[in-house]
């Protein structure tokens, strides 16, 4: 089959690889119909996530049809149209049983990297480096899905492929960002990053009762989409001082909830010295991630407010304003998405018209155009929100 493989920093190639096979009794093989790019792929492509091996197939947000199933798969059948949550749970360990499937004890077959770096090991993720299990990703014609009964979800009748595919990752990530922040009616929520996840967080915050949601970005098309498609007020951080603007908009209180949908490669366009400092430290390995958004959130958030972090961080950051966070009594919530917990609820929102993520798919291309597509996505050219590949042509 054809697959999009990582071969080194900024070196993606479409290659011929063997078809996947059933290995474990709870596996299914999915024939991929749609597979989306994701902002966190850029961290792999840019070489910031270690433990990538040349030849690794990337991609983790996908929809397709089950074509083979293992003998122990109970709830799914051949021919089912499914999405698969990008972060793999086993469904049985204590974390999976408590809705924290991204912390699964069993789904990462290479736990040593994460245990060395983090103390404990989290779940495996499709196409997301060997520290996260080394599973082959979905930018391919077929993909093996382990523990399928727990990770694959039948798409309900009446929900199109284009709406459903993002329930794999972008929608539950955004929804979880809003959900774990404990939004209460009347809350003002600020969301850093208006990519797919940020926009889903904006919509979810409103669904969960936020009074106002403020989206922060610097790309005009994203700001426009955040405003037009999900009803955010918007701020361009390359033009205004974010702290001042947020205080002005919230009567000097600051937002009740601040959501980070950016992660490790944040820039700080409004503060060149800070940006240079972070990039220099990252370049020489003195920190792995750039915390510009975190600093801004800690400063801007109201006293006693909540920071909700779904932007991906890899390792260690520097100059973290702990004094401000502690003295302002902030609450931090964070994590990779626990999509298994939200999939049914999100399909319900899509069915009843509360949510329509299909507009995120600004480009639909064959897999052969993978390398160029990622370049376009990375440079945010052509108003690209998300490229979705159709590997079957």
């Amino acid at each position, binding site marked *: 089959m054809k697959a999009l493989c990582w071969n080194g920093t900024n070196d993606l190639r479409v290659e011929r690889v063997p078809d996947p096979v059933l290995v474990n009794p709870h596996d299914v093989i999915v024939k991929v119909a749609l597979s989306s790019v994701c902002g966190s792929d850029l961290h792999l492509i840019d070489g910031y996530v270690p433990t990538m091996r040349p*030849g690794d197939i990337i991609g983790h947000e996908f929809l397709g049809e089950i074509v083979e199933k293992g003998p122990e798969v109970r709830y799914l059948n051949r021919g089912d149209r499914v999405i698969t949550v990008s972060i793999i749970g*086993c469904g049985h360990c204590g974390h999976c049983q408590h809705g924290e499937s991204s912390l699964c004890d069993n789904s990462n077959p290479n736990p040593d990297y994460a245990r060395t770096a983090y103390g404990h090991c989290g779940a495996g993720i499709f196409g997301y480096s060997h520290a996260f299990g080394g599973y082959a990703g979905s930018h391919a014609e077929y993909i093996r899905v382990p523990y399928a009964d727990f990770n694959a979800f039948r798409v309900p009748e009446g929900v199109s492929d284009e709406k459903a595919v993002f329930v794999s990752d972008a929608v539950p990530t955004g929804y979880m960002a809003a959900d774990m922040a404990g939004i209460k009616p009347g809350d003002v929520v600020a969301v850093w990053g208006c990519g797919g996840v940020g926009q889903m967080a904006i919509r979810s915050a409103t669904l969960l009762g936020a009074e106002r949601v403020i989206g922060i970005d610097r790309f005009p098309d994203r700001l426009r989409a955040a405003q037009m498609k999900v009803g955010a007020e918007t701020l361009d951080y390359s033009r205004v001082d974010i702290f001042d603007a947020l205080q002005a908009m919230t009567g000097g209180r600051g937002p009740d909830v601040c959501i980070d949908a950016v992660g490790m490669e944040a820039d700080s366009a409004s503060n060149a010295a800070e940006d240079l400092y972070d990039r220099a430290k990252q370049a020489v390995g003195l920190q792995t991630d750039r915390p510009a958004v975190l600093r801004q959130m800690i400063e801007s958030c109201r006293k006693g407010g909540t920071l909700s972090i779904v932007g991906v961080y890899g390792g260690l950051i520097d100059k973290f304003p702990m004094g401000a966070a502690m003295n302002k009594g902030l609450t931090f919530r964070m994590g990779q998405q626990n999509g298994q917990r939200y999939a049914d609820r999100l399909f319900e929102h899509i069915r009843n018209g509360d949510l329509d993520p299909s507009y995120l798919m600004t480009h639909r291309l064959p897999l052969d155009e993978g390398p160029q597509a990622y370049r376009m996505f990375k440079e945010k050219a052509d108003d690209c929100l998300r490229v979705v590949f159709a590997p079957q042509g």
Partner: protein
Amino acid sequence: MASNSLTGRGRWPQPDSFLSGLGSELGSGEAATGGRWLAMMGGTALGVIGLRRSGWGGAMLALGGAGLFAVGALGLRPLGERSLRAVPNPGAWRSVPASRRRSLTPERTQAVVTIASEPGAVFRFWRNFANLPKLMPQLERVDVLSATESRWLAKAASGGEGPSWRCVLDRVDEDRLLTWHTVGETALPHRASLMLSPAPGDRGTEVRLTLVYRVPATEVAALLGVTPEGQAEEALRRLKQRVETGELSTIERQPRGNGSGSFREATE
């Protein structure tokens, strides 16, 4: 759910009357603690001297002092390659693999894991020693000879016939404790125990595997292809997966591209 880690590294030693006193856990740990206090005190002194002087010299002294203090306080090795693991935890030295600690033989290794299951299922799986090759890939097979005796055959780390030994069960305390030891001639004399205890708050069963080899860990690694620490952790990881999910997560036989470049290790 802090206790629901995959295999722990034995940072939390438990009372273990059967094995107490066998392993030597002194030595490098205390030396390291002493070194850290020295660094912290020296750093403080340098810092104070530096702050009382003026000019660049004073500033540099103060900075050096602060650095030294930080090295001591954080337990960092000044040129340490494993700074990610350098947490201010006085028990952290225990996580250093036994093979790197200077200790007397016999060497004692303990790994611990929490399994979301009743102790019965875990105990029954392990109690049948014929199951153990499923948990320890370095074993070729285990033949159960009688209610208390078994013969273990390991795979050869480097061709030919692997080491083998006979084991006798000492104690079988249903759903709580299992201990066994080797008898007769063998290149790998050892004793071992599996302890089960309920985890608090309905979190399942805490399972501790202790291995005490009478030969250095390096010798175990040469003969079995795995250190005692690696053996214990892998066995518990597999035990947990088998009991909880009925399978072992794997990426074997999955497709990948040709990839001509070299593998980027996590340590880079």
